[in-house]
C-alpha cells in the first residue's frame, strides 16, 4: 500500500471520527433541542462521510485487498439522502410540540409568520395531553 494513500486514508479516518465525536459532543453539550439537532445531523453525517471516503480509498486502491467495493458509494448516497429527511422530521415534530428554546424567544408556532398555519387547522377540541410522546406524567 502506497505511503501517500495510507496518509490520506488515515487523515480521513481520524478527521471523520473527529467530526462524529464533535457531533455527539454537541448532542451532549448544547442547550435546547433545536440546537442539539444540529450536532448529529450535520457533524456526524459529515464525519461518517469522511470515514466512508477513507474506506472507499482503502479498499479500492489497495492492491492487498482484492476486488472493487462500491458499497461505500451506496451507503454514502443512502445516508446523504436520508439524514436530512430524518432531521427534518424530528425538527417538524419539535415545532409541532411547541418545544421551548433557549434565548427567550416565544413559541415558534406563535411567530407571526406561522399564525395562519394555526388558523387553518381547528385545534379546538383537541386535548393535547393526549398526544402520545411519553414525556408527560399521568
Amino acid at each position: 500500500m502506497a505511503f501517500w494513500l495510507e496518509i490520506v486514508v488515515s487523515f480521513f479516518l481520524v478527521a471523520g471520527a473527529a467530526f462524529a465525536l464533535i457531533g455527539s459532543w454537541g448532542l451532549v453539550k448544547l442547550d435546547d433541542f433545536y440546537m442539539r439537532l444540529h450536532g448529529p445531523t450535520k457533524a456526524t453525517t459529515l464525519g461518517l462521510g469522511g470515514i466512508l471516503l477513507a474506506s472507499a480509498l482503502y479498499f479500492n486502491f489497495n492492491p492487498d485487498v482484492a476486488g472493487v467495493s462500491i458499497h461505500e458509494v451506496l451507503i454514502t448516497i443512502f445516508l446523504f439522502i436520508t439524514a436530512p429527511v430524518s432531521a427534518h422530521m424530528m425538527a417538524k415534530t419539535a415545532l409541532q410540540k411547541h418545544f421551548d428554546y433557549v434565548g427567550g424567544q416565544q413559541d415558534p408556532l406563535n411567530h407571526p409568520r406561522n399564525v395562519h398555519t394555526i388558523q387553518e387547522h381547528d385545534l379546538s377540541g383537541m386535548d393535547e395531553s393526549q398526544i402520545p410522546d411519553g414525556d408527560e406524567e399521568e
Partner: protein
Amino acid sequence: MTMLLIVLLPFLAIGPVWFAARFSRNASFYVAATTTGLGLGLLASLVPEVMAGNVFVDSWPWIERIGLNIAFRMDGLAMLFCILILGIGLMVVIYAKFYLTEDDPIGPFYAMLMTFMGAMLGVVTSENLLLLAMFWELTSISSFLLIGYWRHLPAARQGARLALMITGSGGLFLLAGVLLLQEITGSLELSVVLASGPQILDHDLYWAALICVLMGAFTKSAQFPFHFWLPNAMTAPTPVSAYLHSATMVKAGVFLLARLHPAMSGSPEWFFLVTGAGLTTLAFAAYVALFKHDLKGLLAYSTISHLGIITACLGMSTKWATIAAVFHIMNHAAFKASLFMSAGIVDHECGTRDARLLSGLRHSMPITFGLATLGALAMGGAPFFNGFLSKEMFFKEAYTLSQAHPYWPDAEYWAWIFPVVATVGGLFSVAYSVRFIHDVFFGPEAHDLPKHPHDPPFGMWLPVAILVAVCVVVGVVPMYTAESFLYATASPVTGYDMPEALHLHWWHGLVPELYMTLVAIAAGIGVYTQWKKIAAIGDKLPTIVGKDFFESFIEMLIEGARALDRLVDNQSLQRYMAYTISFATLAGFMAYIEEGWQSGTGVQTPASLVSLVPVILLIAGAFMTDFFQRKRLVSLIFMSVVGLIVSLMFIYFSAPDLGLTQISVEVVTVLLLLLALFVLPQWNPVESGWLRRSRDILVAASAGIGVGALAWGVMTRQQQTIADYYLAESLPKGGGTNVVNVILVDFRGFDTMGEVSVLALASVGIIVMLTGKKPLYPNQVMPFPEERFPLMLTSVTRVLVPTALLVAFYIFMRGHNLPGGGFIAGLVAVVALAMQFVASGLDWTKGRFKLDLVRLSAIGVLLAVGTGLAAFVWGRPFLTSGMLHLHPPGIGEVHIASAMAFDTGVFLVVVGSLVLIIRRLSRYQQTMEVQDKAGGNE
C-alpha cells in the same frame, strides 16, 4: 390361529355393523348376529379337543422388550367363558334388536357391543398377562360406553362414570399385580405363572401381588366394598345389563380368580380375604336385594350376591368348592340373563319396572310369567333347577368348613359362621326370588300402568326361553348334560387336580346341605310374607350408601385439588410467573450446588478496553429499559438500543448473517410495537409496592446470575464441535460458501421449513385475532390535523423504496455465498414496504402493490415443501439439493442450486407474513379511528 380369529372377529365387525346401520336396522342386526354366530361356529370346532383335555396356546411376538406377546390360550375355563360370551351374546343381540326403539341408534349400540364382546373374549383367552390387562381395561371402557348409551339421561352418565372409575382403577391394580407376578416368576406367560405356584406363595411380594390382583377382581365382580357401581350401572339398556352385568363382565373378576387360582391360592391370606369378601357380599347383597323396588336393582344386588357365592367358593379353594364355583358361574349366567331379559320385557311392555306398581301380570303376559317363574326358581335354588345343584355343593363345602380345615384342625365354634352365613344368604335369595315373581305376576291386575301390557314378540322371548330351557334341563338331568362339560371346564381351575368322576345328582340323601336348603326355602318364604315389617326395621339401621361415599370422596379430591390450585394460582399472572421463574432458577441452582460450579479451563479471548464500551452501552440500555418501563415509548427506544448493540456484537463475533437479521428484525419489531402502542395506554400506573418490587428484583437478579454463570461455565470449556463437517461439505454438497445459509436451506432445510411454517401460522393467527367486529373503545384521538404524509419523506421514499428492494434482491441472490439469504432479504423487503406504508399510507400503497399476502406466504411454504419433494423425482431423500452451474457471459459463474428455490420460499413466507401482520394491525387502528369519529359525532 382359530383363537386369534375368534377374538378378532368382533373387532372386525365394528365397522361393518356401524356402517350397515346406515341402510337399515335389520342389516346391522344381521351383521352382528352373523359375526357372533360365526364366532360360535369357530369355537365349536375347538370344543371337542378341549373337552378331551387339550390346551391350545398360540403366540406371536409383539413388544418383546417388555414381555408383551399376542398370545392366546384355550383350555376348559376359557372355553366355558367363550361359550358364555358368544352364546349369551347371541341371545342379547337378538333380544336387543327388539328391545331398542326406533329412536335408539342401533349402529353404535351393536358396534359397542361388538367391542365389548371382543375385549371380553380377549380377557378370557389371553395367555399373556399384560395382554389380559389390556383387554381388561378395554372391557371397562366399552362397558362405560354401553352403560352411558342413553347419554341424555344424567343417571346413565353418572352410572357410567362411576363404573368406569371403579373398574378402571381396579384395572390399574390388576396391571400392578401382573407386573409383580412378572417380577416374581420372571414371565408374563400364563403357562409359566400357573406352573410356579409354590414359588409365588413363598415370595416376599406375594402379599402385594395378591392384594393388587384381588383389587382388580373384586372391583370388576362388584364384591363388597366395591359393589356399589353395579346397581348404578342398571341405568343401561336391559340387553346391556343382561349381558355385561349378569353373564360376562362381572364374571371377569371371578374369571381372574379362577384363572390364577392354581398359582395364587393355598395360603391363609387367600383363604381369608377371598372367602371373607365372598361371604360378606353374599349375605349383604342378598339382604339389600330383598328391599329393592326396581326389578333391575333387585336383580343387580342378587347378581352381586351370587358373585359372592362364587368368590366364597373360590376362596375355600377345596377341590369341590372350586368345582362348585365353576358350576355356579355357568348356572348363574343362564338363569340371571334370562331373568334380566324378563325384567326387560316387563319394563318394555308396561313402561315401568317398579315392583310397587306392577301387579297381576300373569293374566296379560302368560308367556313371560312362565319363563320368569322358572328363572326365578333357578335363582332361588329350588330343586330340579340348575341353581339348586351348585348351591347344594356350596352349602356342603360351607358345612365342611365348620367341621375341620387345615387352618383350624379341630372344630371351632366360630367356624359355624360359614354355614350360617351361607344359609342366611340362601334365605334372602329365596325371599327376593319369591318377591320378584309374586309382586309382579300375582295379585290383582294393575290398571294404572303407563302402557297396556301384553306378551312381547317372539324374537324377544325366544332367547329367554332358550336360557330357561338350559336351566331346567341341567337341573333335571345333570349327569347327562353338564357332567363332562363341568369336568373339562373345572380342571384348569383346580390345577388339573380333579376327582375321578363328578356324579352330579340332585338327591344325595338326608345330608346337612339338604337341611340347609330346606331351612333357607322355608325361612325365605316366611321372610317374604313379613318383608314389610323387616323393611321397617331395616330402614332404622344406619345405611352406608357406597355411591354417596364414593361421590363425596371424589368431591373431596376435587376440593383438595382446588385448594392446592388456589394456593399457587390466584388468577394472577405475575405471581404465577414469579413462582415459575423462581422454581426454574432454584432448580438450576440446585444443580450447581449438587455438582459444584466451577469455571472451565479453556482458552479465553482477552478483550480490549474498547470492547468494554458496547457492553456498557448494552447494560445501560437494558437497565434503562427497565428504569423507564413506566414510560412505554422511552422503554421501547432503549430496547431498540439493546437490539442495535446485540447486532453489533454478532457482527463483531464473526456472525454477519446474524447481525443482518437482528438489525432488520429490530426495526420491524419497533414498527410493530409502535403500531400497538398507539392503541395501548402510554404509561404504566404505579402498581407494585416496594415489597413486590424487591421480590421481583431478587427473582430477576438470581435468574440473571444463574444464566450468566451457566454461559460463563460453558464458554470457558473446550468445545466439541460438529462444525467441521459442515465447513468441509458446504461447498461440495450444498454448493455455497456461506455455510450458515447452506445449513439453513440445505443441511437443516427440514428445520427451516418447519420454522417458516410456524411464522406463516403466526401470521394466520394474528389475522384471525384482528378480524371480526371491533368493539368501540376510547382511544387517543389524532392530535394534529397536520399533513398526513410529510412531503419530504414521501418524495424521498419514492427513490428509497425501489433501492431498498433492489438491495433485498441483491442480498437474496448472493445469500448462498456471502452473508445474506432468504430470511434477511425478506426482512429488508418488509422494511422497505413498511417504509412505503409510513411515508404514503396504506391506501396509496395498496393501489400500487396488489398482492394477496396470505397467498404469498402460502406459495412460499408450498415452494419450500415442493423443493423438498422435487428431490423424490430424482430418487433422493426429501430436501436433497441439486445444483446447476452456469457461465453466462459477463457475469461470471452463477450457481443455481435447488436450494435457491427453497430460499425463495423462505423469502416469500417472511415477506408475506410480516407485511400481513403490519398491514393488518394498522388497518385495525384505522377502523377504530373511524369508529371513534363516528361515536364523537353522535
